[in-house]
């Protein structure tokens, strides 16, 4: 009598469709989100990502306009194209969010990150670390006879590469700021 012949007792059907409908490729996007600098705004943005199961690869936030009470959140996220679209739409409907820009698709942009590396060692390793730091245009911001602290600025890939090189030379601690990004050219996003 029923159009669907399911056997009584089968538990193949749950109350939800458990199959993953997303077989699309994963992309990485850099989003710039301009928000009112008010209490809890960062929690709203982060809560959106955690509550809806989105990824955060990197997150940077600071006030950019003191008089206008504006902050800029730069977030690098990954997901399928439809998930990325959904992230942007969801961010856009948070009340204190003014603008959401997808720098990855809105034309060319520059991305920079700053990192501090503590490298401890002596002898050849110490000399080699200093030589490589020079190649990467890293600044020495602290020095003892047994250690350096390097400051490196660049794309996340450059910083990853520097970290890889420092690891065998006594890398002991890393601090990274996360990505800050702006579109290229004279046009203004916000």
């Amino acid at each position: 009598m029923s159009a669907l012949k399911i056997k009584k007792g089968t538990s193949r059907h749950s109350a939800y469709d458990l199959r993953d409908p997303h077989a699309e490729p994963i992309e990485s996007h850099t989003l710039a989100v301009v928000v009112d600098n008010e209490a809890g705004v960062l929690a709203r943005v982060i809560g959106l990502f955690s509550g809806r199961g989105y990824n955060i690869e990197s997150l940077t936030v600071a006030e950019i306009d003191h008089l206008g009470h504006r902050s800029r959140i730069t977030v690098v996220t990954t997901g399928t194209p439809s998930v990325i679209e959904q992230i942007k739409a969801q961010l856009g409907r948070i009340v204190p969010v003014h603008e959401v820009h997808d720098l990855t698709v809105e034309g060319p942009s520059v991305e920079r990150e700053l990192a501090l590396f503590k490298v401890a060692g002596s002898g050849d390793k110490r000399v080699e670390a200093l030589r490589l730091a020079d190649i990467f245009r890293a600044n020495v911001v602290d020095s003892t006879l047994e250690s350096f602290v390097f400051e490196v600025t660049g794309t996340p890939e450059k910083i990853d590469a520097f970290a890889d090189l420092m690891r065998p030379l006594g890398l002991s601690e890393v601090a990274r700021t996360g990505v800050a990004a702006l579109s290229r050219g004279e046009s203004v996003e916000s």
Partner: protein
Amino acid sequence: MVVESLKDQGVEVVFGYPGGAVLPIYDEIFQQNNIRHVLVRHEQGAVHAAEGYARSTGKPGVCLVTSGPGATNAVTGLTDALMDSIPIVVLTGQVPTFMIGNDAFQEADTVGITRPCTKHNWLVKETDKLADTIHQAFHVATNGRPGPVLIDIPKDVQFANGTYISPKAASTKHYQPKVKGDIETITALVDAMETASRPIFYTGGGVINSGAAGSQLLREIVDATGFPITSTLMGLGAYPANGKNWLGMLGMHGLYEANLAMHGCDLMINIGARFDDRITGRVQDFSPNSLKAHVDIDPSSINKVIHVDLPIVGDVAHVLEDVLRIWKSRGRKTDTAALKEWWAQIEDWRSVDCLKFTQKGKTIKPQHALARLESLTKDHPDRYICTEVGQHQMWAAQYMGFNEPNRWMTSGGLGTMGYGFPASVGVQMAHPDALVINVAGEASWLMNMQEMGTAVQYRLPVKQFILNNERLGMVRQWQELLHGERYSHSWSEALPDFVKLAEAFGAKGIMVSDPADLDDAIMEMINHEGPVIFDCLVEKHENCFPMIPSGEPHNKMLLGEDADTGSAIKEGGAVLV
């Protein structure tokens, strides 16, 4: 200041429960006569009552509760309102600003807890910002996609004096969602309407949220084009159930003809609905051969579940007005020959009579109880129906007809058992002379039964129509069909005597078990002037059909044993599926 702000916002009723952290506001309420306060018996009840008030009037509902447990008890109601896009404003008390973070008595991080379950929330730390924040809150709750907002007010801020500003002076400018749709896409939709051979309107709660104009324009466009229309649970009443193009509700327990028309259409016009998983079934097989248009005021609803071809971000009434204007100016064209064929197909599906049931024997079938309730109340000039959540909710949606918007209050998105009774209290407060009925299951009803005290205290003649099967019917149905008839904890062995319970609260109780007595009992319920608990003992193992099991497409429905599946599945169904 708080009461002044509410008065200037046009608030007439506040649902609330006092406590230490809101006493200054309660003191203000005591000393005025503009705003009525309804003392509920549990803060969850206050929020659902405000939802019922909001859904039945189109105005925002307002709640006032204390800090800590008062606020946490409101969380379910807030989430319910968020899922169903209901405008409510909840004011919570908070411990004094200098004690926040000290684990003070009845302290909770209310804005933290409610951040994901409100559209927006505020902690007001300066009295000078209080009025501005309250006005902003009403603006945010009611503009764009409506939703719940919360304002947390520390007790010292309530006590202090500050500057009052009027709603007009409040800073509401930066939240101005787009209401007009993109004309190019609207024109493309008109193109599609002119040439479609199997079009369908699929409408939702957004039409009702768009106000009277939204429903009016929808009726005009449906009747002028002659396209069939189906609606989600939330959208019932926007197009009248007695209208000639009405197919009935769609979705998991929707009508056979509505679901098959969705599956087989070549143009789907979604107006103010959100492709919920109870609607779409298996998304990969959802209406595979149609061009899809989606009108929604919330950009995040578009392309969230189903990819659409014609996305239109805007308010339903504004967009429909443009669609109608352009369609009319181009000569009101439709493919009438194809439409005739499409309707013939739909009539063929309709002949399955998927809601058919046979009332026999000495036990009342729940469908029969609702069919009789419908028949005896549908001509009432001012009828409002609330429901709880479960089988009775789906049967009410199937067997009751709604010819006007704002007459149907049900928890759709969140599926909150315990919603209906407090909602009926809120509806009756807004419409004191109306017939307000809460169709309930006994299990859902018990979840917020304490609100009997509210109903009796405020002489609210709400009718609690309980279909009592001594089971969690929907859970039991899933266990029967999908979990090997292992009925794990889905029945209740210690139900109260509902007649005595009613009497204990000072209300009237009616129990009926014989089908022969049903009509008289329903009339007795309607004619009684006070609140009534109507305990209708029904068939214990009745299942709710039609049913699309989750993860299946629309064309794979389970039908009840009485439906006439003979011709349609072989011919009609097979043609398009």
